[in-house]
């Protein structure tokens, strides 16, 4: 069973859990995701891996309460177990294949938005440990919704905090922060954006303007996560790709974001109905 070992609420709606999943932990690499099914009646929910520890046999997931299924996941307490945790799925980030020599000359800028901030962490950590220069822009609506800022301080060269309302750090969105940095003379060899689809779309537009190559991590709808259902199909460079097995990371310049956003919202109506009728299954027993 996949026992929850620790749990903390990072914001009122975002929860971090460390879960026992030895097989997943020993195979996981930055950029990959896993699927959680909370209990027998639950959905299979893809979540990006926010950290992993092969020795301890644990993976860390960060979940935002959005609908009925994410509420269920968050309702679990340490000592309880999820029915299923399967992974790691998808391909690891491209840089995982690079040697330290190759990475030494690179300067990465990560643009992290909302709950997407958490999966940025293992990537930044890996790059930092393998000799690349890494800066991180963390954005949120307001200061209380910022997550992972302390964690990043230990593993990146420069951390830039942005809030839409100016309550902490730069007053504005992450892309505006990036434009400011480049205007001030920073030079980046690659950007990586992880966050809401709309934020990744605008990060891509900004990077195209600035001439920075960009990688995005698509959180498409999925059922199995192994290439079987095709729910996650996206158009990349004019070709149909499956985000679960050929992604989740793609070249941002090539992604058809408008289609990806439409496809992501396919079950909005059903999800809203489910949330309305949802009775959280707390106390469901072990």
């Amino acid at each position: 069973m996949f026992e929850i070992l620790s749990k903390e609420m990072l914001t009122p709606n975002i929860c971090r859990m460390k879960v026992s999943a030895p097989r997943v932990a020993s195979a996981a690499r930055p950029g990959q995701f896993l699927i959680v099914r909370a209990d027998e009646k639950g959905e299979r929910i893809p979540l990006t891996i926010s950290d992993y520890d092969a020795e301890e046999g644990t993976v860390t997931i960060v979940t935002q309460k959005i609908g009925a299924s994410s509420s269920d996941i968050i309702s679990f307490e340490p000592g309880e177990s999820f029915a299923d945790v399967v992974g790691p799925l998808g391909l690891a980030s491209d840089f995982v294949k690079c040697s330290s020599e190759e990475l030494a000359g690179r300067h990465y800028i990560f643009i992290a938005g909302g709950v997407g901030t958490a999966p940025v962490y293992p990537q930044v950590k890996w790059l930092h440990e393998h000799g690349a220069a890494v800066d991180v822009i963390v954005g949120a609506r307001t200061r209380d919704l910022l997550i992972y800022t302390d964690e990043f301080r230990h593993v990146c060269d420069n951390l830039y905090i942005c809030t839409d309302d100016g309550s902490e750090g730069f007053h504005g969105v992450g892309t505006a922060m990036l434009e400011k940095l480049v205007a001030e003379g920073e030079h980046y060899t690659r950007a990586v954006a992880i966050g809401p689809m709309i934020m990744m779309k605008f990060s891509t537009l900004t990077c195209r303007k600035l001439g920075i190559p960009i990688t995005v991590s698509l959180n498409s709808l999925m059922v199995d996560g192994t290439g079987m259902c095709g729910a996650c199909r996206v158009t990349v460079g004019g070709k149909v790709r499956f985000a679960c097995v050929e992604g989740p990371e793609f070249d941002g310049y090539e992604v058809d974001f408008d289609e990806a956003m439409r496809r992501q919202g396919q079950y909005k109506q059903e999800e809203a109905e489910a949330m309305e009728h949802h009775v959280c299954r707390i106390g469901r027993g072990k």
Partner: protein
Amino acid sequence: MAERISRVPVREQDPKVRATNFEEVSYGYNREEAMLEASRCLHCKNPRCMSACPVGVRIPDFIEKLASGDVDGAAAVIALDSSLPAVCGRVCPQETQCEGSCILGVKSEPVAIGKLERFVADYASEPKVEKAPSNGMKVAVIGSGPAGLACASDLAKWGYGVTIFEALHKSGGVLQYGIPEFRLPKDTVLARELDRVAALGVRIETDVVVGKTVTIDQLMDKEGFKAVFVGSGAGLPKFMGIPGENLCGVFSANEFLTRNNLMKAFRPDYLTPIRAGRKVCVVGGGNVAMDAARTALRLGAEVHIVYRRTEAELPARREEVHHAEQEGIVFDMLTNPVEVLGDEKGWVRALRCIRMELGEPDESGRRSPVPVPGSEFEIPTETVIMSLGTSPNPLISSTTGGLETTRRGCLVADESGATTRPGVFAGGDAVTGAATVILAMGAGRTAARAIDKYLKNL
């Protein structure tokens, strides 16, 4: 006198009623019906039914036992060759195999071999299985579908320590995620078959995606498995490559069926959503297309099957086509989609099709469909389900050194199931591409014998 009895009809749920529920369509025979039907068998000296069975079930022998009322004896005969009789009795294409070869079929109707097999599997008491003492050798089986279950059962009986690694959270493979409840009830029929495999001491570890969670190399080098059987099926859905296929409301049959079968989306107490809408077009003519169509119907939609050839060429089992027609599915034959049309919000609004006609026979002897110029028309629809077949998943072949694949992504294996890598065997759809449950089961058993031979000579 035996041939004067006509084929005993099987009782079924009324089409109008069953179109609104997911309970099994066919009730199957009761004891009297089964014994009466069994009495129709002529016990041919040269039983053509048996040679037409991919695994060579001794059909006249089990029918003889059944005719005399010895259901357990009949089960023991079937068990010599088949490990999933309750499944095969329900989903095998009998009309092209055993029943298609039955001599009675020449002048009247063939013996209902499938229904008899189903009766025996459902009503026999648990057979006593002889199991050899443990030989201490471990074998890994990848995939818990028909090929994997059959291979694992045999190896476990012979004393091997078998672990099945299943990628999904439930075992059964296509029997679990693909074939709907109304053809193969999960909690009764499938669960019982899976329990039998578990009772042999086979361990099933779910949630392990071999190629991702662990590789074949790790299983062999670090976890002590002396041989591996790959029965990972053909899981990747095909699409047509026509414009509009990524519109909202276009699904692969795999997705639609997995949501409904594995995730139980048809039950309000399960959280996974499914959307059929008011009208559905299912593209394709195989069993999976019939399953998707009849599932959509049960979810409340008006359903059309869109197929480019004629009804005579439909590759689905006759019984499924017949059941689909009875339930009110509309068959749009000689019709081929050319584009999925969307509304301003990116949702499907219609399927643009072209009329086809059958042209000259091709190399295979089948008359191939050719488009009728200028005959394009639109079928208004909310949902399009693509059911065009599947191909093997490259997750394993791409992460295992020394495993050759064909141009179509199928694993290369010889007649015994041996792949190009020593100690690794394969069978079922992973080798052949999408085929049938019985062929996969047969391949699993063949590979089990090859694995046994390989390990004894190590």
